[in-house]
């Protein structure tokens, strides 16, 4: 498959307008909440105001009596007997015996209007017995901590651990103590990060319809329609194939829309309301209280380093809470935290902890930013202590092809060294800094996921092509897949239409997650295009009366492969397609697999900040992202991914955080107080696309979507130390904390 010998591409690497662009800028694109149907009802959800409470009694009679109310549901309307993650999903969709976090759904209503549904929700009476709660991950493993759920630990948790520890892991190699003994400097510190939300602009929205016959439909904003299908049917006890799920356009997901939160409620309400479609749209407050942010983390890191910057040993012990259910990304955080470095002696220990918070979901490189914050912060301090240049230290320890990763496997082709060298050569590094300014550098890593992938391609009668993919387009994947398909078929970019299709149209596809859409769906589209090309060559060979093997495909046309094959003028795709009905029927290509050859991506960020010494306020002066893309199919959208990752990381580093009151209620469930960066907070983010092609992809693609959020947390902490002399080990590095740190060091 390797097409690397094609030194010159006609389309790959160009920057055409995205096919969904016009619809999006004119407001014509249909997002989750834009879907409506005749007879549709509106849903509203009653949510727990308590962080932890026993549900003693729910009285829905007044709500049911209200005119216009067509269905009221509680957990009693769901099937029982689920286990494992299916039970977790059901319990998170609708509380059972206990409400486990502020915002946990307790009951839901469908009515003839949104206002009526909301009015009915206010008429539902719930008697709670408020229970002690725990929010902080370190508090949750204290001996006297309230227990979220007895017996929730899986088999990995050794006897005698605190009951809120539900998963435990340790792995590594070598002898870290021997490694520390070899070092000239050993440092150990503890770091904490708060939970942050993906902050996608489009709140969750769906319209579900379910009949008494168990056949249903769902229109939903999601990153993965098959995941929605599988999870909804599991939670509701339906046959998987009987639910058809159609994805809408998606206004951001960043991992947060790879699972379900409220979708089964619309189906359950629909069924109870006689099969009428039920629309459910979350408010921003619902999104922040009751969908999945990432985990909060408490992390100990210990590293040994020689005077020349060589890392001799490294140990990480991470504790993460991912809400009231197992599933914090502590494993991923550990896999990634030392991934850029060649280590003989390394040890990882991880605890997945329960707390009274919403069930965490994936958030762009889940876990990796937290681990990087701890490790890259400590490395920076050690470089300062030893007087070693932070980029030289990273180059000295950088992993290369063939090295064994800190988390076990052997690296194939990777581009960390090239990335660090490109960083070193960038002009931003030689811009002089003024007073109260500082420069910070950090590296980061994320994988590239494969996953179940099914793609169909069909040639239309006019010689254009349509591609059906199952991965919703979050970051420009339709443009990238169209470019690769057009390049392969030898036709113009505009002649390919890529459609994101519903569950009935293809085999199972995993969501757009793990930086996989352009890699996996793109690879499958190229293979499918190859099948169509083979068929078109066969049709030309039939017409010419020569052997199909003697026909080759060049620039969108079949032609005899050399003079011996016969002398015929090239037959174009339009000519072949125009007579497909009489030459054997439709021409298509199909490919399904769990593709191999994933290509991981390393990045390095350099940030310049200025800190107001009197207020602790940090301004980002300039920001540079350097990252290996393998090959950038559509460079503008690769740059967009780099910039987007950096922007989210900057928000996480400086101001974003879940803030809970003493009562365990989330205090900042609106964007006024959940402070994502606004446009004027950020400079234009500089990008450098490093291209070390991934040999596992026909056009060299690596996953690029996630790595960019990994380095900003430590890079900014490192820059703030340079600017102020104060080292921040807890996020967010908000002005009150930075000012306090400046004052604490006597500044």
């Amino acid at each position, binding site marked *: 498959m390797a097409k690397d010998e094609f030194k010159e591409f006609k389309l790959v690497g160009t920057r055409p307008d995205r096919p969904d662009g016009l619809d999006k800028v004119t407001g014509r694109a249909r997002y989750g909440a834009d879907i409506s149907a005749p007879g549709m009802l509106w849903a509203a959800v009653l949510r727990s105001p308590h962080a932890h409470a026993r549900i003693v009694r729910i009285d829905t009679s007044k709500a049911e009596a209200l005119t216009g109310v067509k269905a009221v549901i509680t957990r009693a309307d769901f099937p029982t007997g689920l286990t494992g993650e299916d039970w977790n999903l059901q319990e998170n969709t609708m509380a059972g015996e206990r409400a486990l976090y502020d915002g946990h759904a307790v009951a839901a209503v469908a009515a003839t209007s949104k206002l009526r549904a909301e009015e009915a929700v206010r008429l539902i009476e719930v008697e709670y017995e408020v229970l002690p709660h725990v929010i902080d991950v370190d508090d949750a493993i204290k001996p006297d901590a309230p227990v979220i759920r007895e017996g929730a630990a899986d088999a990995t948790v050794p006897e005698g651990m605190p009951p809120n520890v539900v998963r435990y892991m340790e792995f590594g190699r070598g002898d870290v103590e021997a490694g520390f003994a070899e070092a000239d400097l050993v440092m150990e510190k503890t770091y904490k990060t708060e939970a942050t939300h993906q902050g996608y602009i489009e709140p969750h929205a769906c319209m579900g319809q379910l009949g008494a016959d168990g056949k249903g439909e769902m229109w939903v904003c999601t990153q993965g329609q098959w995941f929605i299908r599988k999870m909804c049917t599991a939670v509701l006890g339906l046959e998987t194939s009987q639910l058809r799920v159609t994805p809408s356009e998606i206004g951001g997901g960043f991992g947060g829309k790879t699972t379900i939160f409220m979708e089964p409620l619309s189906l359950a309400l629909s069924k109870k309301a006689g099969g009428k479609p039920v629309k459910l749209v979350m408010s921003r407050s619902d999104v922040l209280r009751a969908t999945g942010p990432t985990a909060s983390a408490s992390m100990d890191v210990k590293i040994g380093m020689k005077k020349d910057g060589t890392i001799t040993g490294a140990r990480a012990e991470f504790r993460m809470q991912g809400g009231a259910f197992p599933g914090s990304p502590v494993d991923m955080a550990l896999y990634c935290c030392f991934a850029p470095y060649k280590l003989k002696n390394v040890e990882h220990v991880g605890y997945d902890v329960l707390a009274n918070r919403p069930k965490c979901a994936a958030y762009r490189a889940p876990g990796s930013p937290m681990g990087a914050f701890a490790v890259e912060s400590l490395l920076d301090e050690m470089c300062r202590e030893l007087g070693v240049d932070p980029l030289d230290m990273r180059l000295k320890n950088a992993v290369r092809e063939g090295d064994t990763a800190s988390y076990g496997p052997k690296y194939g082709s990777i581009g960390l060294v090239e990335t660090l060298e490109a960083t070193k050569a960038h002009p931003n590094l030689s811009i002089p800094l003024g007073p109260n300014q500082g420069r910070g550098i950090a590296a980061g890593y994320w994988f590239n996921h494969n996953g179940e992938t099914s793609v169909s391609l069909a040639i239309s009668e006019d010689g254009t092509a349509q591609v059906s993919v199952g991965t919703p387009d979050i970051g420009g994947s339709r443009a990238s897949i169209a470019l690769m398909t057009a390049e392969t078929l030898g036709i113009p970019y505009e002649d390919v239409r890529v459609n994101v299709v519903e569950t009935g149209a293809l085999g199972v596809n995993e969501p757009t997650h793990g930086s996989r859409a352009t890699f996996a769906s793109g690879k499958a589209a190229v293979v499918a295009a190859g099948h169509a090309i083979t068929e078109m060559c066969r049709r030309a060979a039939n017409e010419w009366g020569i052997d199909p093997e003697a026909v080759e495909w060049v620039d969108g046309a079949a032609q005899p492969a050399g003079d011996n094959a016969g002398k015929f003028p090239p037959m174009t795709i339009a000519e072949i397609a125009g007579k497909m009905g009489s030459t054997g029927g439709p021409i298509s290509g199909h490919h399904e697999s769990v593709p191999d050859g994933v290509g991981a991506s390393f990045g390095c960020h350099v940030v310049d900040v200025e800190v107001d010494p009197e207020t602790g*306020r940090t301004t980002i002066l300039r920001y540079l992202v350097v990252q290996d893309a393998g090959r950038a199919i559509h460079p503008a959208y690769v740059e967009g991914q780099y910039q987007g990752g950096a922007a989210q990381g900057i928000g996480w580093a400086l101001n974003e955080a879940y*803030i809970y009151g003493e009562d365990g209620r989330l205090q900042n469930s609106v964007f006024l107080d959940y402070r994502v960066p606004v446009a004027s907070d950020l400079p234009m983010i500089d990008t450098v696309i490093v291209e070390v092609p991934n040999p596992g992809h026909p056009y060299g693609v690596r996953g690029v979507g996630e790595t960019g959020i990994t380095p900003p947390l430590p890079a900014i902490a490192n820059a703030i130390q340079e600017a102020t002399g104060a080292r921040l080990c807890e996020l967010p590095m908000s002005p*009150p904390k930075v000012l306090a740190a400046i004052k604490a060091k006597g500044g």
Partner: protein
Amino acid sequence: MRYHTPTTFEDAAQLAAQAKGLTRFLAGGTDVLVQMRAGMVQPDDLIDLKKIAGVAEITATDDGGWRIGVAVPGIALGAHEGLCADWPGVVEGMELVGSTQIQGRATLTGNLCNGSPAADSVPGLVAAGASVEITGPDGTRNVPVEEIPVSPGKTALKAGELISAILLPPRGQNAGDAYLRFIPRTEMDIAVVGSAVSLRLDGDTVTEARVALGAVAPTVKLVPEAAEAIIGTTLDEAALEALAKAASAACSPIDDKRGTVAFRTEVAGVLTKRAALIAKARAKGDTA
């Protein structure tokens, strides 16, 4: 809910006085409509003031000051040359409220009546010595702006009373004002601390001053001690330090999701120093 559109303030006051349940006045609507949509407030009577003649106008008063109608949106303040020349600190406070879209609707009067200690336009009005004209069942009266908010979300207005205009005094010569707020971001945020300073110079010496702080007490606060710290000085280093100290000393903030007691207290002093220097530069003719 009953929706009313009176054409005089007297009628509006009568409607409010006769109303039995929850009453809200509507001008820009950037607080009331949002609160209604969020389910925080369900008024029984909603009295829209925009049909009253003159409510969207800024007019010069006989004494050389300004009268600002209750429905004048923020964006109109910034577009008014006379007002910007006289009271740039008042204008910049209002301009910090919300987004461009919000600026097209939001009003000074609404910002004041919302009763938030963090209201960005209020410290500037207090420092300016602005007053409000109140219309009620018993006629009209004028009250200094600082007497309107009494606690978070509460005002001194009695049942049936409403503000019918904001009145800015004549600016006079050699004077300037400024408002600064602290937010962690650059816009679209709520003040963690706000500070307004208005002063008059004789040469380089401060002869009059008023200082007002926001978001550091249950209401926006006039701080005479801070003004006294700079009157008679040239805003030298010692005077600025005394000003900062007096401003910090006047703070009685809370710890909340937006800031800590220590941070607000400290930064109130920092912002007040900086605002005083801007006000001084403006008094000397610097239009920045």
